């Protein structure tokens, strides 16, 4: 299943504002990568004690 074009547009904009110009294929890979990490990040944020400081 391909990434939604709005996802790619958002990521492209974010990359271009940092001076990087990825292809659609690059961004599809990033979407897949982030799809694995972001839900786990949300779970970890829930797990951490509120007073956990760096």
């Amino acid at each position: 299943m391909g990434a939604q074009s709005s996802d790619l547009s958002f990521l492209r904009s974010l990359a271009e504002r940092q001076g990087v110009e990825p292809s659609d294929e690059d961004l599809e890979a990033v979407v897949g990568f982030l799809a694995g990490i972001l839900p786990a990040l949300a779970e970890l944020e829930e797990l951490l004690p509120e007073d956990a400081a760096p």
Partner: protein
Amino acid sequence: MSVAALAARLRAGELSPREAVEGYLERIEAHRGLNAYISVRAEGALAEADAAEGAAERGPLWGVPVAVKDVIDVAGERTTAASEVLRDNVASRDAAVVEGLRSAGAIVLGKLNLHEFAYGAKTTSEHFGAAHNPWATDRVCGGSSGGSGAAAAADLAAGTLGTDTAGSIRIPAAFCGVTGHRPSVGLVSNEGVVPVAWSFDTVGPIARSAEDCSLLLEAIAPEFRSEPEGGEPRVGLVTSLLAQADPRVAAVVEEAAGAFRPEQVDAPVLDHAGLIQQLMMLPEAAAAHLPWLRTRLADYGADVRARLLAGLLMPATAYPTGLRARRWLDEHVRPLFDRYDVLAAPAMPIVAPLLDEDPVAIGGRLVPYRLALIPFNSPWSCLGLPVTSVPCGFVDGLPVGLALVGRRGADATVLRVAEAFQRETDWHERRPPLLV
């Protein structure tokens, strides 16, 4: 031949530095198909061998031929990082660790293959070709320091240096049946080394034995001193990692660790380490590469490009959450070292897979190769702990590694325990069939 044995023979005058260098150059040529080296500095090494003959001071590694991963600068030589991006990058001076090797008398034979920019675990560079496992040349030698593992296993240098951010010394050491030590973060200087992620990067040795790793570490880490033999170490065997490994690998590791009469340690908190390290490593790597991402994006291999871009585009909260979580993890893991001198675990959950094998099978489950390894690497590298991977047996004729982990700064303790293990076993002396 081991670093220790070769150094002793050189000191005794049984062979000259030139003879030692010539012997390795012949072996490198004979095993070019392994693609362990990116560049060989034959003329330079021979000239340095001749110069060593007249050296007024003879250090502990006098005349010993070594090789370094091609992210480590050697003056006048290319540092390519196995990437098109740095194909023509020539170092103007030696990295600090190369200065250390030279001060100890070692001679650098050349630069070793790796996964592009040390940012992957296969050593299958699109630009410089795959390095092959000496135990089975159709299999990966691991990575990112794959050339270092292959060269140590195939005796293409007496000892090697690799780097480890999230497993890059331990993976090739385990897959190639050699000994690798990931030092505590901060023990070894990273000056003159292409970075992956500053919080986790460290240079370390991959060689035939823990004794050899100690000798190399003494040369590159001025503060490191080997420990004398001590009493029986208190060892904890991490059962939660055994349970995640291929059952055949787990059985080999459990039997090997039995030599220490370990207590069983269940530490499910370690399961979070992989994510925590990714949250910090991905943005750090993207930051380190940002100038090249802007100008050379198409020159990266697809896998490395995807990970770098993911780091560039992650939400800003990922990094501080990683920092918070790393401290939280440390607070759970540190007390274990009040009870144990060393933790033992499988270095890797599998033996070396085929070059194109991805996903890999673990106990009937198919898991992406990279994700299969992370749970075994990150618990230790995330916290900057020292780890030695020692050969401890075989599955299907392929080497298995036992990881020995210490508290941060306890490198000498970990290596002492590894040396004790290797005095009682001979797994580290087994050689690949192609060499027999």
